[in-house]
C-alpha cells in the first residue's frame, strides 16, 4: 500500500530537479576550467557555481531522496499509512524554502564559500539559514521514521522489523546524529559572525565540527543505495536475499562506525594531534567491513537469482542473469564504481598515503565516483523501480532506461578516472584557473579534457533520465501489483533483540563519538587563543 504518493513524488521530483540544475553547473565548471575554454576572467563566478553545485548535490538532493524513499518504505514495509503526513509536508516545505533561501545569496555572489563553508570566510547569513532549514526539515523526517516504527512495534510485539524499515531507521538515526556537527558549527560559530554579533571565529574547532558531519554524510547518501541493494534488487532480478541477518549487521556497523571517523578529512590540519588522527584512521578502516559484507551478500543473492534461472558452472551463471533488466545493470555498474571508489578511499583514509593526494583533484574524482557514480545510479534505479507504483503508469521505455544507465556508467568512468590521474600528477583542487601552456602542468591538460567529455556524457544521460520519468507520467495506466521487498532465503521468525532494536547501537554511536571527538573539541573549546578574524565574502563592499 502506498497512500502518500504525492508526498513521495514531491520529494523525488524536487530532489531530481535540484540534481539536474546542479549537474548543469558541474558540467559548466568542468568545461570552463579545462583547456577547451579560455580562462574565465572572473574566478568568483566559478566559486559561486561550485558553491551552488556542492550545496544542492550534498544537502538538498540526497536528503530529499532519503526522505521520499523513507516515507515510501514506511508505508510499503510496515503496510500501514504514514503517521504524521502533515508533519512530513511541513518537513518538505522547510527543505524547499531552505533551498531557495540558501540559493538566492549564492546566486547573487554573496556566499561563495563552497558547501563546506570554510571559515574564516563568512558569506551572507541567509545561505547558512537556508542550510539549517534544510537540515531541520530532514530532522522532522528522522522523528517521523522513529515514531512510525515505534507505533508499528507496539502493534507487533516480538515480530522482526521488516529489513527495509530497519535499514531506513539506521540511515535516519545516522543522519540525525551526524548533522549535529555541522549544525553546531553553523548555529554557534558561523551564524553569530554572519549576523554581526561577533567578528572572530575559531577555525580549527569549526573544521573539527564539520568533519563530524562531513564523512558520515556520505554514508547517509549511501543508505538509500544500500537499502536498494538488499531489499529491492534481489526481488527485481527474481532472486532472494542471501542473508537477512547479514544485512542488519551491515546497517548496524554503518550506524556505529561511520560517525566518529571524519577526522581523516583533517589529516593535514595542525590543530589535531597525530594520535587522534591515527585512531580515526583505524575506525575509518572498519567501515570497509560492512561494505565487504554487503558486496558478499549481494553477490551471493545475485548468484541465487542466476541459478534459479538455470545458470550453471562456477562463473557460467553470470550469463543467466537478466541483463535486459535496468536494475541488474544499475547494480552491476554501482558495484564496479563502488569497488574502484572504495579502493581509492582506502588510500584517502591511510594517514601516510593520504599525504600524496590530499587536496588534489584525486579527492574530487574520488567522491564523484562514489557518490555521483555508485550512489546516484542507485537513486536512478530506485526511481525506476518505484515510479510505476507512484504514478500508476507503466514504464514502457526499458531500452532508453538501459541506455541511460550505460551512459551514466561510462560518463562517470570517463569523468573520474582521468580526474584521479590529474590528482596524482599533483593538480590541486578548488582552483578556478589552470594555465595549461605552462610546461609544469601541461601534462594535466589531456586528463582534464577527457574528464570534461565525461561530464558532457553525464549531462546527456541525465536528460535521458528525465525523459524516462516524464514519459512515465504520460504513459498508459496499468493496474500495479502490490509492491514487494526482497525475501530472504531463510526467513527467520525470531531474531536477536540486538538486531531488532537500535538502543545499543545508538549508545555505541554516541559513545564512540565521545571517545573520538571528545578531547579535540574540549581542548580547543577551552583554549582562548584559537580565534581568527572572520573574512566576509561577497564582492566589493562599497
Amino acid at each position, binding site marked *: 500500500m502506498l497512500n502518500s504518493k504525492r508526498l513521495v513524488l514531491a520529494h523525488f521530483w524536487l530532489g531530481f530537479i535540484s540534481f539536474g540544475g546542479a549537474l548543469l553547473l558541474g558540467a559548466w565548471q568542468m568545461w570552463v576550467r579545462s583547456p577547451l575554454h579560455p580562462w574565465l576572467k572572473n574566478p568568483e563566478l566559478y566559486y559561486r557555481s561550485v558553491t551552488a553545485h556542492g550545496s544542492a548535490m550534498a544537502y538538498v538532493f540526497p536528503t530529499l531522496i532519503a526522505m521520499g524513499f523513507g516515507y515510501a518504505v514506511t508505508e510499503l514495509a510496515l503496510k500501514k499509512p504514514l503517521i504524521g503526513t502533515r508533519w512530513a509536508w511541513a518537513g518538505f516545505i522547510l527543505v524547499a524554502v531552505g533551498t531557495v533561501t540558501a540559493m538566492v545569496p549564492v546566486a547573487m555572489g554573496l556566499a561563495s564559500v563552497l558547501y563546506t563553508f570554510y571559515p574564516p570566510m563568512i558569506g551572507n547569513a541567509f545561505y547558512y539559514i537556508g542550510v539549517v532549514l534544510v537540515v531541520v526539515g530532514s530532522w522532522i523526517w528522522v522523528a517521523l521514521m522513529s515514531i512510525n516504527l515505534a507505533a508499528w512495534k507496539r502493534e507487533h510485539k516480538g515480530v522482526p522489523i521488516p529489513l527495509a524499515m530497519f535499514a531506513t531507521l539506521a540511515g535516519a538515526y545516522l543522519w540525525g546524529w551526524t548533522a549535529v556537527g555541522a549544525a553546531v558549527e553553523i548555529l554557534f560559530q558561523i551564524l553569530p559572525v554572519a549576523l554581526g554579533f561577533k567578528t572572530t571565529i575559531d577555525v580549527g574547532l569549526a573544521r573539527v565540527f564539520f568533519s563530524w558531519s562531513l564523512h558520515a554524510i556520505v554514508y547517509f547518501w549511501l543508505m538509500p543505495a544500500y537499502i536498494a541493494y538488499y531489499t529491492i534488487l534481489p526481488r527485481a532480478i527474481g532472486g532472494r536475499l542471501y542473508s537477512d541477518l547479514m544485512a542488519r549487521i551491515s546497517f548496524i556497523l554503518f550506524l556505529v562506525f561511520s560517525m566518529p571517523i571524519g577526522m581523516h578529512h583533517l589529516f593535514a590540519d595542525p590543530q589535531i594531534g597525530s594520535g587522534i588522527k591515527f585512531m580515526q584512521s583505524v575506525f575509518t578502516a572498519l567501515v570497509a567491513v560492512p561494505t565487504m559484507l554487503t558486496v558478499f551478500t549481494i553477490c551471493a543473492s545475485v548468484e541465487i537469482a542466476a541459478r534459479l534461472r538455470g545458470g550453471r558452472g562456477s562463473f557460467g551463471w553470470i550469463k543467466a542473469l537478466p541483463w535486459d533488466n535496468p536494475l541488474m545493470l544499475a547494480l552491476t555498474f554501482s558495484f564496479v564504481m563502488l569497488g574502484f571508489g572504495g579502493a581509492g578511499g582506502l588510500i584517502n583514509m591511510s594517514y601516510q598515503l593520504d599525504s600524496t593526494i590530499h587536496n588534489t583533484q584525486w579527492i574530487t574524482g574520488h567522491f564523484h565516483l562514489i557518490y555521483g557514480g555508485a550512489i546516484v545510479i542507485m537513486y536512478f534505479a530506485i526511481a525506476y523501480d518505484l515510479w510505476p507504483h507512484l504514478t500508476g503508469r507503466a514504464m514502457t521505455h526499458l531500452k532508453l532506461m538501459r541506455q541511460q544507465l550505460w551512459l551514466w556508467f561510462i560518463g562517470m568512468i570517463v569523468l573520474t578516472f582521468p580526474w584521479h590521474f590529474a590528482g596524482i600528477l599533483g593538480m590541486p583542487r578548488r582552483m578556478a584557473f589552470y*594555465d595549461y601552456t605552462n610546461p609544469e602542468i601541461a601534462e594535466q591538460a589531456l586528463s582534464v579534457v577527457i574528464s570534461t567529455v565525461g561530464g558532457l556524457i553525464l549531462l546527456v544521460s541525465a536528460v535521458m533520465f528525465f525523459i524516462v520519468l516524464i514519459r512515465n507520467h504520460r504513459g498508459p495506466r496499468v493496474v500495479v501489483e502490490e509492491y514487494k521487498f526482497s525475501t530472504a532465503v531463510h526467513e527467520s521468525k525470531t531474531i536477536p533483540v540486538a538486531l531488532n532494536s537500535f538502543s545499543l547501537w545508538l549508545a555505541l554511536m554516541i559513545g564512540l563519538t565521545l571517545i573520538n571527538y571528545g578531547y579535540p573539541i574540549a581542548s580547543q573549546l577551552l583554549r582562548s587563543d584559537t580565534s581568527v578574524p572572520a573574512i566576509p565574502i561577497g564582492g566589493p563592499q562599497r
Partner: protein
Amino acid sequence: MSEERLFSLRNRWFTVTVGGILGVAAFSAAVGFIWLPSAHSDQPFQGVWNAICSAAGVPQQWLRTSSATPVPLVQTSAVAMTPQLLAESGSTSIGRGATVSMRCTMCHGVRGMSDANTPNLAGQYASVIYKQLLDFQSGARRNAVMSPMVSNLTDQDMRDLSAYYAYLPRPVALRSDAAPAVSVPEIVSDGAPMRNIASCASCHGGIDHKAGSPWLEGMPAAYTRAQLQAFANDTRHNDINEQMRNVARNMTPAEIDAAAAYYAGAQP
C-alpha cells in the same frame, strides 16, 4: 524474544560488540598515542606522558633554544588588519577628525582631494588610512613629509582623522591629469596568474575588496606608479605578508604604467 535483555552481561551481542569496540579503541589508542610517537627521537616525544601529550596535540614548545624574541632587522607594521577594524565611527570622531585634518590640507587638499600627486583621502576606507598613519608613526613606512607630520598624533587623533576622511564623499570629477577613459588593462582585471599576480580588482575593488586595500580609482598616476616601484624595490615594506611586494616585483614596467594610468582615469 521480548524477554531477552539487551543491556546485560549475559547477552553476547552486548558483551561482544561493546567489548570489541572498546578493544579496538584501546588498541588503536595504544598504537597511536604510545607506540608510534615513541618511534620519534625528538625531545617532545621522550617518555610515555610526553608521547601521549604530543599525539593528542597538546601544544608544546619545539626546539627550545632561546626565550628571547628575535629583533627584526626591518621595522614591520604592527597593525593587525581585520575586516572589522574601524568599521563604524561616531559623529564626534568625524568632527574631531575634521579639526585635526587642518594640518593635512596643505598636501591632501581642503576636503581630501588635491592635484599635488598625493593620494585621495576623501571617501577612503577608514581602516586603510588608520593603518598607514600608524605605520608612518612607527616607522614601518617612511616618507620625508608624512613621517614628521604624524609623529605627534595620538591614537585617537589617527582614528578621528580616518573617520573624517572616510566620511567625506568620494569625488565625482576626474583628475585633470587623467587620461581619457582607458579600457581596463589585463593586469587590473585578470592579473597574471602564472607570475603569481592576482588581479588588482580582486583586492582593490571591482571583483572583491580585501581588508587593508584602498580603493584606487582616481589616484594620481604618479603616486600609484611610485608606490608600486617602492614595493618592487623594497623601499616600502609595510605590507606585512609581502602581498604587495610580491605582486609589484613580478609586474613589468609596462604593467605598472598601465595600472597607474588606468586607475588615474577611472571614475571613483
